[in-house]
């Protein structure tokens, strides 16, 4: 132990555990509490999470326990956007402006059954943050395909052939809504996610953050690799971190090198760690590579 060297200051505040208490009901390696810790660092107790049916409904724990020291309103599956709209307007009416309303919904509750209420809330531009934590399938019911499941992935409802369609890109749909702020994020980059939440906090109106959240159970990987796999998604260029506001896309720091295709790791490195891609044929891997290129072209056009 060196006696003179001061410990480096952690880049995130030390209050990640203020809100996220030990003893939640998450599986080992679950990305959900990873995301919540960053919320805790930004908002502390002063947030109301609106959670539709999802793994998160379970992760917070069973009555009378609660693993979050913040306010939580559980809601019916299709309704995160609508309930958050109502809470936001009631707080505004009551003159309460130091509490952040956050819709925290999975990909099913966002891209599928919750799409209409998300779209409605976005179009009405209610002043809250909608976070879609994307584990790319219906994990709570046991790994069924969602529209956000990527091409080729095994799920229990695409058990032999794998998914034959590409992922629905909800961030792009939100950009098309013309809301004040849209961003993508990843549980592997908490500083980036933290900065985006800080920016979202300062912007009035509807904010959407699409958080990539690898699920060890559903994606079939060792629970210790959650962050590694999330990072590989960025390093292979499969998941692009950006912010979109004032009519322009701004590539986030971690994704900047990968604008240059030669800097990207081969997608195989991401795919091979996950059991859900075990049966991918070379043709399907080529299709995934094409999708990556196509997505980056879209990114470049909007920068």
């Amino acid at each position, binding site marked *: 132990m060196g006696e003179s060297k001061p410990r480096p200051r952690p880049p995130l505040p030390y209050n990640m555990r203020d809100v996220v208490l030990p003893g939640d009901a998450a599986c080992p390696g679950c990305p959900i509490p990873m995301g919540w810790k960053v919320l805790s660092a930004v908002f502390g107790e002063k947030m109301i999470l609106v959670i539709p049916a999802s793994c998160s409904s379970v992760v917070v724990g*069973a009555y009378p326990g609660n693993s979050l020291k913040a306010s939580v309103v559980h809601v019916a599956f299709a309704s995160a956007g609508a309930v958050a709209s109502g809470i936001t307007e009631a707080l505004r009416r*009551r003159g*309460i402006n130091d*509490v952040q309303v956050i819709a925290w919904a999975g990909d099913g509750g966002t891209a599928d059954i919750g799409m*209409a209420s998300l779209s409605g809330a976005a179009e009405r531009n209610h002043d809250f943050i909608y976070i879609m934590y994307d584990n790319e399938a219906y994990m709570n019911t046991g790994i069924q395909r969602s529209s956000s499941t990527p091409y080729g992935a095994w799920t229990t409802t695409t058990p032999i052939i794998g998914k034959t369609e590409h992922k629905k890109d909800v961030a792009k749909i939100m950009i098309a809504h013309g809301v004040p702020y849209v961003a993508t994020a990843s549980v592997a980059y908490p500083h980036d996610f933290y900065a985006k939440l800080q920016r979202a906090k300062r912007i009035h109106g509807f904010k959407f953050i699409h958080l990539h959240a690898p699920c060890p159970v559903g994606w079939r990987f060792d629970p210790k690799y959650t962050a590694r796999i999330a990072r590989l998604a960025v390093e292979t260029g499969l998941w692009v971190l950006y912010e979109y506001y004032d009519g322009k896309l701004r590539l986030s720091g971690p994704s900047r090198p990968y604008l240059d295709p030669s800097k990207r790791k081969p997608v195989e490195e991401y795919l091979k760690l996950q059991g859900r891609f075990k049966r991918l044929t070379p043709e399907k891997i080529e299709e995934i590579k094409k999708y990556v290129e196509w997505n980056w072209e879209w990114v470049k056009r909007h920068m």
Partner: protein
Amino acid sequence: MTAILEESRGGRILPLTGNYAVAMAAKMARVQVVAAYPITPQTSVIEKLSEYIEAGELEATMIRVESEHSALAATFGAAIAGARAFTATSSHGLLYMHEWVHWTGRARVPIVMAIVTRAIAPPWNIWPDHSDFYDQRDAGWVMGFAMDNQEAFDLTLQAFRISEDPRVYLPVMIGLEGFILGHTTMPVHIPDQEAVDEWLGPRRQGFVIDGSEPLAHGNLAWPEDTEEMFMDIHRAMMEAKSVIREVDEEYYRITGRRYGGLTQCIRCSDAKYVVSSMGAWSGDIMEAVEKLRGEGYPVGVLRFRFIRPFPEEDVAEHLAGKKLVVVFDRAISFGSMGQLFMETVAHLAKHTGKLPVLRNIVAGVGGVNVEWREFYELIKDSIDRFEEGGELEYFTWYHKARR
């Protein structure tokens, strides 16, 4: 007007449609958030509220949601966060939000919702019956139903008091038939705003989620805890009976109007035969009964103002010991009978070993118009055949082909 206007208590009389009467009541309750989606025949309720808000007559936020499912979800959000919240819908809109009808009831969050009733498709049909309303019976809502526009106003206002009473803390829905009441203008007595403010008081609710303290609502619960929560809802519903009666009495203080609690029984005390009903056509039934009284028939009318909580005591008081009870239903549980009849008989059986002769007449389904003279014939025929010792059908679907 059915209400007994015993003395003037100030206020003014306005010509209002049933829908405008409901909107006026919501305005006078000073609702803070309205989230609604238009559907015929509810539309003019939310149009009028939008007008109040945009004209600055009502300090509230209108959330113009993208569906009824979101309408009640957003209303719930506003209510749980401490706002007095209101919505209205009809028929398919109500069915579309049915998941949220259960959610809000089980959440114990005070909310008021008006149901401007309409038949359920297919076939497409915008005429009124009670099918949409009865479809919500098991969700933990207090459920009242108006007979005329005055009562639509009164019940809506009373609903806020009932819903926000600490003994209840349940959402309340108020039914009124589309078009028959919804779009028909009648004189409606409106009390003074100051009197309403004093009578209603500020928003009350069991718990508020507004970030002032960490609080979670709706967490996963084990079966035993879940059952206890639902038993509490049932207890609150039973408590709501006395609250409804109290509110009706206190409302008399500011309006001079009282209805008699959960039911209204006209000509019942010396009646040997009682006809039972809910909704606007009860007025036609009362007219038929008055004519029959004039002809010497000892007949009365038990009109249901509330079906949740079910007014079991009123049923016992007014129907036990009668010779004949005829229940008119404007809806049917396919494969069974009319809902009001089923519930009336089930509760009556608890209180009397000797049931009256019972008859259920389902009519007016799909919005078929039934006139007072038809009620007169149906009631007279029932009594005459009963007195002649003839066989009365237990269940009849009274139907007229389209002319």
